């Protein structure tokens, strides 16, 4: 059984959740672009600080108090006749993802202040709305509330991708929306069914869904209904077809949200809902999902190896790593799950950093294709060295963030199935290969084209160098202070997690332990009392 | 049944049948129509004999009065001579009409055989409570008072519609 408490006596989670929307509505009423920027950035940063405060205040369960506990919970009746309540709170996984989301959204909003010039106010408002939706996904303890936020993520995403995206944005947007909606509507049927079986949609509590699992036959179907939604969002092979187009066509600030955070919502869905609610089905489907994940991570890595568009290289790298995370989740043991959640954080940071680097290169060369690059490092050393950090982190250098995560995942996989571990580990070689290729072809080697020779296209009004179509006006020199400022927190975090992954795992593990107990025994002994 | 009533019944029934024959045998549509009025009016007499005063009145007013007069107007306005095809028979019209008539007759005989009470004149509750018109009036002004009243707005809407649609030029009243 999962319990929920609030040691603060103060609905801080709700404040974190609703602050961005409130700021977005304020921005709606204001016309001055500077004020709008200030409000948006301030809201994102305040949210980040509050999330960090929560992270620090998060009570680490001692040996005796272990159990699946939601802290800082805030509950209000909403529509009790159909099992719907407003219930938010965080466990060890979601607190980390909340902090991560508010960090990445801060970076994205900061990036938007200088990368998006066209209708910036609306862009920022939509980003703030998106932040609330994403945070809502992580903090909901009621399945209906979760679904509302899950679907609500799509609406700002639709506009952010569709209005500010690149050339083939309409196609990419429709594909993205249809895939996502396909998954979530089937999940909706699953939610209806769960409610009709149990009469509640609350996760925690003695009458909650966790404490009252449905029959084994129903679990198998429900697992598919939920799993499809999560698999599409993650994206797990073979449901990933929307992702390369959507990633390539996204404007950069939204891309940070999309690849950095939205994809984590899918993986989070597996951890939070699929595993605890359908434990026996998770076992039945474990092998299939693991195989899909292994195929996916190798397949995407190979594709990353042959791309010439640098944005696509990073897009496929991202998909490959997300499949690795799913592989970690479906070890169904605490080691693999710890590694998977840790890797979610690392993935988010590294991929965002790499996409930022892609954008910086684009803003200087006017192209995204490898054949138009080479020798950029000589010209822009700051860009090269900072980019290099992310490349190293991307190929799992020990001492940097992703090393610990991947080791844990592979240890977990090894415990379940040695063959899976061996085949899966091939990705490490592939990752090193495509990362180094990416770096070599852009930064080293002979200078391919000078900035003056870049083909000059028509200048679209109200666009910055970061936005398609290409401008005559490229950024001439090395990284600007603002651009470096976006890199810095990410790099510091990579190093910090590399040295101190324990800060995260000590929060993740106490949540993953009861989840794995639940999955492996079908019930949670010893936690019946609750608080 | 009293003797007088019997006499009235047989006379009225005979005229009704004659009228019916007239409808199908008359050469001119005008005569057919007039024969039909004759039949309908005699049916009203039969209703009266059954104590169904209201239906008798409705029969005269609506069928013999309104509907048939409209028929005659149409026949007169069209002028059948101008449309020779109207005199022609449809293929198979004659056997079909005989068959339908036979079915109707069979139905009536069957009904009578099943429910002899229906023609032996055992008085229904309606008749016992003081006659058809009164019961009808009672119902109309009690149970069905509200639906009856509602026909008023229905007629108003119909009237407004007729005016609105039949006006010839646009923006007439505003000019």
């Amino acid at each position, binding site marked *: 059984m999962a319990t929920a408490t609030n040691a603060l006596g103060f609905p801080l989670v709700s404040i974190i959740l609703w602050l961005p929307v409130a700021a977005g509505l304020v921005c709606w009423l204001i016309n001055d672009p500077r004020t709008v920027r200030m409000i948006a950035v301030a809201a994102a940063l305040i949210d980040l600080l509050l999330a960090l405060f929560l992270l620090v205040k998060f009570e680490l369960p001692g040996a005796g108090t272990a159990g699946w506990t939601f802290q800082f919970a805030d509950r209000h009746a909403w529509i009790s006749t159909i099992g719907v309540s407003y219930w938010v709170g965080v466990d060890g996984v979601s607190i980390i993802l909340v902090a991560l989301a508010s960090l990445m959204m801060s970076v994205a909003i900061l990036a938007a202040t200088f990368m998006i010039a066209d209708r910036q106010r609306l862009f920022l408002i939509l980003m703030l709305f998106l932040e609330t939706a994403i945070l809502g996904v992580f903090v909901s303890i009621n399945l209906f509330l979760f679904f509302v936020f899950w679907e609500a993520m799509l609406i700002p995403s639709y*506009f952010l991708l569709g209005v500010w995206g690149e050339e083939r944005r309409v196609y990419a947007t429709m594909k993205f929306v249809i895939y996502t909606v396909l998954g979530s*509507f089937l999940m909706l049927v699953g939610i209806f069914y769960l*409610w009709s079986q149990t009469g509640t949609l609350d996760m925690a509590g003695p009458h909650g869904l966790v404490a009252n699992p449905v029959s084994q036959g129903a679990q198998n179907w429900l697992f598919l209904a939920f799993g499809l939604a999560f698999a599409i969002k993650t994206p797990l092979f073979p449901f990933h077809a929307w992702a390369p187009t959507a990633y390539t066509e996204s404007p950069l600030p939204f891309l940070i949200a999309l690849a950095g955070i939205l994809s984590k919502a899918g993986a989070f869905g597996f951890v939070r809902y699929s595993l605890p609610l359908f434990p026996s089905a998770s076992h039945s489907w474990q092998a299939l999902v693991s195989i899909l994940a292994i195929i996916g991570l190798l397949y995407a890595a190979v594709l990353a190896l042959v791309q010439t568009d640098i944005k696509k290289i990073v897009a496929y790298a991202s998909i490959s790593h997300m499949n690795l995370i799913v592989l970690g989740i479906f070890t169904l043991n605490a080691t693999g799950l710890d590694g998977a959640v840790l890797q979610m954080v690392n993935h988010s940071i590294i991929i965002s950093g790499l996409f930022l680097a892609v954008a910086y290169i684009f803003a200087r060369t006017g192209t995204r294709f490898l054949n138009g690059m080479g020798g950029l490092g000589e010209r822009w050393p700051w860009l090269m060295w900072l980019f290099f950090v992310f490349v190293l982190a991307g190929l799992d250098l020990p001492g940097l963030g992703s090393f610990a995560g991947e080791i844990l995942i592979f240890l977990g996989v090894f415990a379940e199935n040695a063959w899976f571990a061996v085949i899966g580990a091939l990705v490490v070689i592939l990752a090193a290969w495509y990362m180094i290729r990416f770096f070599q072809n852009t930064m080293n080697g002979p200078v391919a084209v000078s900035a003056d020779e870049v083909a000059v296209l028509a200048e679209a009004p109200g666009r910055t160098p970061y936005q398609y179509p290409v401008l005559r006006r490229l950024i001439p020199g090395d990284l600007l202070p603002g651009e470096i400022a976006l890199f810095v927190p990410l790099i510091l975090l990579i190093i910090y997690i590399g040295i101190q992954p324990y800060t995260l795992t000590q929060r993740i593990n106490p949540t993953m332990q009861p989840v794995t107990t639940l999955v492996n025994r079908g019930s949670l002994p010893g936690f019946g009392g609750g608080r | 049944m009293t003797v007088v009533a019997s006499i009235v019944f047989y006379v009225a029934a005979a005229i009704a049948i004659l009228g019916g024959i007239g409808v199908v045998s008359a050469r001119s549509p005008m005569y057919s129509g007039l024969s039909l009025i004759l039949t309908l009016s005699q049916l009203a007499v039969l209703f009266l004999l059954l104590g169904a005063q209201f239906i008798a009145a409705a029969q005269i007013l609506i069928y013999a009065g309104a509907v048939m007069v409209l028929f005659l107007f149409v026949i007169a306005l069209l002028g059948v001579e101008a449309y020779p095809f109207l005199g022609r028979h449809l293929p198979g019209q004659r056997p079909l009409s005989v068959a339908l008539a036979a079915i109707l007759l069979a139905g009536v005989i069957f009904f009578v055989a099943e429910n002899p009470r229906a023609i032996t004149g055992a008085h229904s509750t309606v008749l016992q409570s003081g006659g058809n018109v009164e019961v009808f009036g009672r119902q109309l002004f009690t149970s069905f008072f509200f639906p009856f009243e509602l026909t008023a*707005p229905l007629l108003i809407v*119909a009237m407004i519609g007729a005016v*609105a649609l039949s006006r010839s030029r646009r923006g007439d009243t505003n000019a």
Partner: protein
Amino acid sequence: MIVAVIHINVTLADWGSVLPELIIAGGMLLLMLVDVFVPGKKVNLTTWLTLIILALAFAASWNLWRTGGMASALYGTVTSDRFAMFFDFSILISAALAVLISPGYISTSAFDSGEYYALILGAVLGMMLMAAGLSLMVLFIALELLSLALYILSGFERFRPRSQEAGFKYFLLSSFASAFLLYGFALLYGVTGSTSLIKISTCLAGHAHGCSAAATSSPLLYIGIGLMLVGFAFKVSIVPFHMWTPDVYEGAPTPVTAFMSVATKAALFAAFIRVFSMSLSTVESHWYGALWALAIATMVVGNIAALAQSNMKRLLAYSGIAHAGYILVAMAANNALGQSAVAFYFLAYTFMNIGAFVFVAYLETTGRAGDEIASYRGIFYRNPALALPMAIFMFSLAGFPPTAGFFAKYVAFQAAVQAGHVDLVVVGVITSLVSVVYYLRVVAVMFLQPAEEAAPVEQPVPPEQPPAVEQVPASAEPVTRPQLPWNIDVGIWTAALGSIVLGIIPTGLLTYASESVTAVRALFGLP
């Protein structure tokens, strides 16, 4: 001589329970008088007058809601229970929104405003009675009242062939449906011996004197139910009786389409529920199968046909058909939750659907072909204040949270799952997925395709003009923010706000909806 005295046993309380209807009827007459006696142009006067009448009726309905109304009044022919009042709210709000957007249309089409508004009120009167009728007689006369007014309103633009066609088509097909319904009513009366819905239900439950014990298995009952089902299906445009809908919606004046697309369905569904789910609830097995098949056909055909539409009014017609299918799913659940889902659905539908029509109506008054979806291209870049609410309506119709449409659909489907009809819900969810494609295509045209890419077809560039000059205004044109007329502004944002608020805080209204259903179920002795 015996003098028969009929005591008409109608008290003031009886009249009080039809006060909203009386206000509307009186208003109709008042408008006719104003039309005759006030000289000159009087569009504004009549518009305001109509709005005030509707507001008064709303207040009266609200008062009846507050006091609970009378279970049955005027010899048990009408009721003012909360169920009727709840539907009255939907009907009155949609009428008010339609009236609000009419002036522009009236002046471009040179309507006679007095008659136009009087007919709208006539239709409203019929609809409110439809929702309140407890007797087959009242239901039929109310149906005729609303249909007659709508026939005329559909063909009100007498000089536009499309409108004439719409009016005529609607008249022919719909009067056919009325006949079906009337036959069904007659057979139902023949089987049960009463026109009162309550007496019919007690008869079929086997509790009444003078009611044949074999009534529930009488073949006449089956035929009667079938005929009534056809009649209702026709009027609320359920597949396969939907063919008239797109043509009529497209041809009728847009405010009229807006009004009838919501209010007619609300009224008819209220009666549908009263007759089938309440009065005939004991013989559910007679009609459930047919309803099941109709619901599936309606959802599938409505959504798939909508995919192919390039005209917004036709798209909304098919979308309306699809939504009727979702509502049927809730109705097929045949439980209290399902019925309150229907009631709630219409309130949500009022805002989102009429909102979309407000958008079309405004564009039509600007002299454009306002119902061609292709002409919406890049409208967000020219007129964001118009495009944003439209996007809200589309997302709401497609059923995305946090909008009213999502919530309405959620409750509807949940009721069906509760009743064990998972098959219906699966079809509903899959067809909703299809609907996402065509709703979001409209949004994509408005938002994702900038106007600068659209070649100005209507203004061919004179040949002597150098081509360089024509390119400049396409992009460098200062973004003019056209000011919407205030009535469009109010209409569209009321609808948008309604669509959002009902999605975020539906609790209160959902409670009202279930209270209203409790009232009507109590009336028919259902738990």
